[in-house]
Every structure is written in C-alpha cells, then in structure tokens.
C-alpha cells in the first residue's frame, strides 16, 4: 500500500517534472526588466521573448534611436552616412511584444527588486538585466571634461560625437596632424582606436596632402597590432605613427580652449585631437552598487548574474567577462546566455554553462578588413579562451583575403543588428 501510494505520488511528481519545460512559457505575472537598449539589452529582450512567449518584458532606454558604435569609424572616415548606424525599437515592440520605455533608469533597489526611472515611476521586476554600456571618466585626463569634448571629440559613444568628429576631420587642411589619444585597458572596443586611425588616414590620403595621424597611447601594445601596422604601412606608408605608453605616449593633460594635448614630456598642438578617455561601467550600474573599485561589474561567468546583488545580471561593456573583450559581439552573446539563465531561473530549472564567442572585424580601408575571433569557456571562475581556438587574421595575406574580410565585416554588421533589433 505504501508502495502503491508512493508510486502514485511519484508518478504525479514525474508528470509535474515532465511538464516542467512547458513552464518555460513563463510563470504567470513574471516580469523581467532590461536596462539599456544597445546590443546587449536589445538582444536580451529578443531572446527572452523566444524562450518565454508569455513573459512580461520591459526595456528601459532613454534614446528613441540607438546609434551603434560599430560602423562609426566608417562614418568618421566618410565611407557611410551616420543614418546607417541608427536602429529604432519599433520591431522589438511590434514583432516581439517588448514594452519599451524611453526613460533613464536612475536607481535600482536590489532588495525590493525595483527600478526607479528619471520620470519618477518605479518598475518591479523578478529578474533584472543591466546593459548600460560605458560611462566616460571625465577629468581623469586633466582638462578633459564634457565641455572639452565639444572641441576635442571622443566619439566613443556614437551619435552627435561621431558627427562632430567627422565635421572636424573635414576641416583639417593640408599638412594637418590628427591626434588620437587611446586609453589604457580595459576599455570599449579594443581595436577601435586603431581602426579609426586607418580610416582617418584613408580620408586624409585621398583628399589632403602631407597630413599625419599620431596615436598617443597609454598602452604598450594593442589588439591586432601586427596586422594593423602591416596594413597601415602598405596602405598609407608612414602617415600613421603610434607612440606607446612606454615611449611617453600617455596623454595626461589637455587644454581644449588652446588646442593642446600633453604627455608627461611633450606638448602637441594638432589640427584635430580625438581624445578617448578612460571608461567605467554605465552610470546606473555604478549607482546601483554593481561595480567594484576598478569601475566594472563582477559577474558569475556562467550566467552573468551579479556577484554583488542577486537577481541582477550584468552584460556587455559594463561587466567583467574575463578574457572576453568589451564589444558588440561579446554583448550579443552574453545577452543570449543571460536571457537563457533568466528563463531557466524563472522556470525553476537548472542552467548549464555554455561557451561564448566574440568576433570583431576592423577596416583599414573600405576593401581591407582584418578580424579577431575567440571562443570562451568558463574555467576557474572566469571566461577564458579555449586553448587552440581563436586568434587574428594571418599576417601577409593577399589583397583578396583582406577584401573578403572587409565584405564579411559588412555582413557581420547587418547580421548582428538584425539579431538585436529585429532586422
């Protein structure tokens, strides 16, 4: 009798367990809030919808149009108009049933599980995904505050700043020197400053005479360095010069009104200065207490759940993802992983860690592309590259290979934007 009862209870239990995947449709009333509508947040919204058709999903993003950083160096170089980088939220609303709230998240109360918006409203959540990108650390380079950025653009958040740097570049005359100040690690888009150098040189070499691009770097090495230097030489001769941190390349002070840039020992007065300042996690992540002293947010590398506040996942440029670079590609893949982890958690299921990838293309000219790729697994509590995988395009490849990668760069951009914002 006992056995029979147990067996019946057991079968009931088994039925419940077998039915468990259906719970992935979402427990009634569950709500996930996503802060930030860039590559991380938009992808997370979309893939959460895929996993849980009934879930209430709210995306909080102050801007009605997102302007992507990927592609922005091509705009600066004059290859494309800025409008090509704009992505709205209509398809997330209409095709995927995402509530999009155009407001800024100004506070997060982890214990009450609430997000407060700039307009005063509070939104309760069961799980929160935070993907606010970066914040620029003003005045860490002496004299480089928000006002200085109107004269010496950073263009490290795309939009107005991208357009400003493009306009300023168009005003550079024959013989002008353009300085790019590159920050120390970690920062958004490790190959970005060097792609920018190439595309600025492309513009200047076609339209001006005797110009120069001088990269003043806080670092002693950089992403895809040998490939960039090989390509610069082949395409632009000695037009691009890179000064390492060890060779006194770190910019410590600027004066936007007088137009000069200083390292410890030298002062430069270029035709145009593009200052890329040090960065930290997006403001809301820091305000919520998700960041550590270094400025970025520690997370469980398997689920991207915050190590500081339970119930909150931090993805994209704001999180510390081990060896994964701060890139759109990383943010996109982290978003899929976090969305799956959130869905599993809401459905009361376990979650197994999964490998993640990063793919970044850089252009040195419109028909000259190079790439870096990596596959990252969880090992010893962090995301680390899988041995034998990943790496950069080969040195010494022929023009056809570079052109093919430039074409793939275009396809990569179209694909990842469709993946995030819904085509």
């Amino acid at each position, binding site marked *: 009798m006992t056995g029979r009862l147990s067996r019946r209870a*057991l079968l009931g239990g088994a039925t419940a367990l077998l039915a468990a995947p259906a719970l992935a449709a979402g427990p009634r009333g569950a709500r996930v809030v996503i802060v930030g509508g860039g590559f991380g947040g938009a992808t997370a919204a979309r893939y959460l919808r895929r996993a849980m058709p009934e879930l209430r999903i709210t995306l909080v993003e102050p801007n009605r149009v997102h302007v992507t950083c990927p592609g922005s160096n091509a705009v600066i170089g004059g290859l494309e108009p800025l409008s090509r980088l704009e992505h709205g939220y209509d398809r997330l609303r209409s095709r995927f049933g995402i509530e999009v709230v155009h407001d800024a998240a100004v506070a997060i109360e982890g214990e009450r599980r609430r997000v407060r918006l700039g307009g005063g409203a509070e939104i309760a959540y069961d799980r929160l995904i935070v993907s606010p990108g970066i914040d620029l650390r003003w005045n860490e380079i002496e004299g480089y505050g928000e006002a200085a950025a109107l004269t010496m653009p950073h263009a490290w958040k795309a939009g107005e700043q991208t357009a400003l740097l493009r306009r300023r570049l168009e005003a550079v005359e024959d013989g002008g020197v353009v300085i790019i100040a590159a920050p120390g690690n970690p920062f958004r888009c490790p190959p970005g400053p060097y792609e920018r150098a190439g595309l600025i040189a492309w513009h200047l070499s076609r339209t001006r005479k005797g110009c120069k691009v001088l990269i003043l770097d806080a670092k002693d090495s950089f992403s895809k360095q040998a490939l960039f230097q090989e390509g610069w030489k082949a395409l632009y001769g000695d037009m691009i010069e890179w000064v390492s941190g060890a060779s006194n390349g770190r910019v410590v002070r600027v004066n936007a009104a007088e137009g000069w840039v200083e390292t410890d020992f030298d002062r430069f007065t270029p035709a145009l200065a593009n200052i890329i300042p040090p960065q930290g996690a997006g403001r809301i992540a820091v305000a919520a207490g998700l960041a550590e002293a270094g400025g970025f947010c520690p997370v469980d590398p398997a689920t991207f759940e915050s190590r500081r506040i339970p119930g909150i996942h931090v993805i994209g440029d704001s999180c510390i993802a081990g060896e994964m670079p701060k890139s759109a590609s990383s943010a*996109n893949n982290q978003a899929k992983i976090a969305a799956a982890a959130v869905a599993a958690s809401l459905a009361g*299921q376990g979650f197994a860690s999964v490998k993640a990838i990063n793919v970044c293309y850089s252009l040195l000219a419109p028909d000259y592309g190079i790439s870096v790729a990596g596959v990252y697994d969880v090992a010893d509590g962090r995301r680390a590259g899988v041995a034998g995988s990943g790496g950069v395009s080969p040195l010494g490849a022929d023009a056809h290979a570079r052109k093919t990668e430039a074409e793939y760069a275009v396809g*990569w951009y179209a694909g990842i934007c469709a993946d995030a914002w819904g085509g």
Partner: protein
Amino acid sequence: MRSLAAFMALVVMAAALPARAEAPVRLMAETCLACHSPELHSTIPTLAGRPAGDLLRLLLAFRDGSRAATIMDRIAKGYSREELGAIAGELAGKGERP
C-alpha cells in the same frame, strides 16, 4: 524501497535531462545567428535549410583545417566534435524564427 528509489531516480533523470540538455545546445546554436542571420541576405551565408550532415562536415573541415577559411577555422577549433554535431543538428532543425 531500494528499487523504488532507483526507479524514482530514473524517472527524475529522464524528466529532468531533456530540459537541461536542451538549453545549452540551443544556446550554442543561437550563437551562430549573430553573423549567420536567418533574416537577411548578406555577404555571410545563411545556414537555414542546410542539412545537419552538410553543416557538420563543413564545421569539422574548418576545425581540422582541411577547408580554407577566413574566420570559421578559428571558431570551430573552440568546440568538440560532439558540440559541433549538436550545433549542426540544432541549426538544421530550425525553421523560421519567431
């Protein structure tokens, strides 16, 4: 009781396994869609509608270097044969996206 416990363990495993095994494979396969968009015609080939066997043969050829590639060789080397098999199967089973 012991056999009951064993039976219970089996049922629990059988019930729990598909749900847990499913997520990582689907998740791994979704990784590919960032570049290989099923919604666009771009310079990067779509994977939609390609049989699992064809996809797996390609992935293994990228992995062992027998097929020339720009980037897929570097990515395929990060996965085991079993993982590539599971990814190929998942991608082949995919129709249109929601």
